[in-house]
């Protein structure tokens, strides 16, 4: 067996570590650039210990953009979107997994079909809808398309289907109704799937670009991707400011991911995506 030889084991490590460096390098380089004064980094050997490193670019970031406002917008829109999706998807998933009703299979197929519709097909009519209701340039307009998630219903239904029915039946004997079964038995048991979906939901909102680009006009409603893209447009030569913004935007989602990481693989493995 080849892999018992230390040579091939070393080779494996070399590959994994080398790959990890390639993954990390752009991030490290972004951090270094963000603290390099002067901004436009010229060709030449990369300077990993830039002279006069300082946090000036971060200060400038606060100066030239309503940065805290933009960050706060992203945080609260992301949180609201994630919570709404978790609640609506978990409830629908429970209905599809545990509450038989006529037309259930057909309705589920409709949910799945919407997964295949590209956002771009919906952009113009969504825009018109928002304009009709006078919602352009509002928080609600950014949130609206993320309230329900067919992907979430699909993922969570698979998880609920794996909760043994005996648990519910025991609860029914104790006089519990569907709401109590859902809240006290099913939700705690599908926590890994909920954590995974929370990450994917938050990620989608945090990183969403096209829809906010279309619907948001005023700087005070901007989210991070919009702010960064705009920053890039205005400060193409001052890469340290652009990179400072990029660095700040990665940190919150990284923290969230590290909290939920251990659930992700387990949940992908049991969600039926084998």
């Amino acid at each position, binding site marked *: 067996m*080849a892999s018992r030889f230390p040579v091939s084991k070393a080779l494996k490590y070399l590959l994994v570590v080398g790959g*990890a460096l390639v993954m990390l390098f752009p991030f490290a380089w972004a951090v270094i650039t963000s603290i390099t004064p002067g901004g436009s980094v010229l*060709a030449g050997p990369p300077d990993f210990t830039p002279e006069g490193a300082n946090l000036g670019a971060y200060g400038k970031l606060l100066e030239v953009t309503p940065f805290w406002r933009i960050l706060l917008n992203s945080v609260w829109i992301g949180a609201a979107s994630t919570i709404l999706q978790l609640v609506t998807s978990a409830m629908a998933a429970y209905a599809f997994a545990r*509450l038989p009703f006529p037309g259930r299979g057909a309705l589920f197929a409709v949910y799945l079909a919407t997964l295949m519709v590209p956002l771009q097909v919906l952009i113009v*009519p969504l825009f018109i809808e928002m304009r009709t209701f006078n919602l352009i340039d509002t928080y609600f307009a950014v949130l609206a398309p993320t309230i329900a998630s067919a992907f979430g219903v699909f993922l969570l239904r698979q998880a609920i289907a794996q909760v043994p029915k005996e648990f519910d039946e025991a609860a029914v004997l104790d006089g519990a109704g569907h709401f109590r079964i859902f809240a006290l038995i099913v939700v705690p048991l599908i926590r890994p799937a909920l954590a995974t979906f929370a990450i994917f939901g938050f990620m989608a909102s945090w*990183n969403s*670009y*096209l829809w906010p680009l279309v619907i948001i006009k005023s700087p005070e409603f901007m989210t991070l991707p919009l702010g960064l893209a705009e920053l*890039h447009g205005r400060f193409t030569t001052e890469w340290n400011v652009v990179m400072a913004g990029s660095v700040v935007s990665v940190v919150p989602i990284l923290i969230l991911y590290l909290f939920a990481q251990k659930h992700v693989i387990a949940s992908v493995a049991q969600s039926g995506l084998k």
Partner: protein
Amino acid sequence: MTLTATPPRTRAAHALRPPRRRLRYAGTVAVFLLPSLIPLVLFTLVPMAGSLWVSLHEWNLIEPMRWVGLDNYGEVLADPKTRAAFLHTLYFIAGYLPLVYAGGLGLAMLLNRAMGGRNLFRAIYFLPVITSWVVVALMWKWLLNPASGIVNWALGLLGVEGPGWWTDPTWAMPSIILASAWKDLGFVMIILLAGLQAIPNEYHEAARVDGASAWQRFRRITLPLLSPSTFFVVVISLINGFQVFDQVHVMTGGGPGGATEVVVEQVYRLTFQYGRAGAASALSWLLFAVVLLVTLIQVRVQRRWVNYGY
């Protein structure tokens, strides 16, 4: 992806319930379902219908719509730009998909075995996945800067003169492909890791006892048993590949000289630059039709190569 079959209908079961309880049961179902159904109808199904309607009109988003029937479809189909946009999109997919699958598979196999720091490495490889496309596109635009980028500096050390990357029509698409594969590698890795972990160890053990080489075991056991995960990755990547936009919009905006003008970039331009909402809708339905067709073909062909039973 495995779609669990819907359980048999139990209409008879609740038809037997007394009317009041049936009413209450219907109420319960509604309470669970409506919070997702109402937004889904309002913000997905209604816009879908609306988009079909818009595609039959000439409309600049401001003045009243003018009915033109199927003219938009005819125009979009005849427009050489449409052909070019689809070709650019296919070019993207042809480069991106093999790269991201091969890379993701290699990583998943390396990180599936017990090794020190495995979780740390998984997190590192997943980092680009959680990073916004705008950030990733900016980083890569800058790493691949022809004059001051570090990639060309490193190539210079090797005595190679680096290309103009995103400023050069020949290299613009490869630049976008490179950045995209780098970003999505971790996602493919996670899906394939989950797939690898579902393969019982005994298969490999038995093959080893029978004297199968590492390559034979990979070819005859790992790959076939991984086919459901592969199928999922390919379906999702193709759907996403056809809709590639964010990275293009930020890195090149469709340029230079239209070399990276993909379908969605074209939809965006038609709508918001040229005020041709009808033509844009027609083009996006054309895209939807292609994605649906490709997905259906995949679902049909999968029976030949996807192996669900262990």
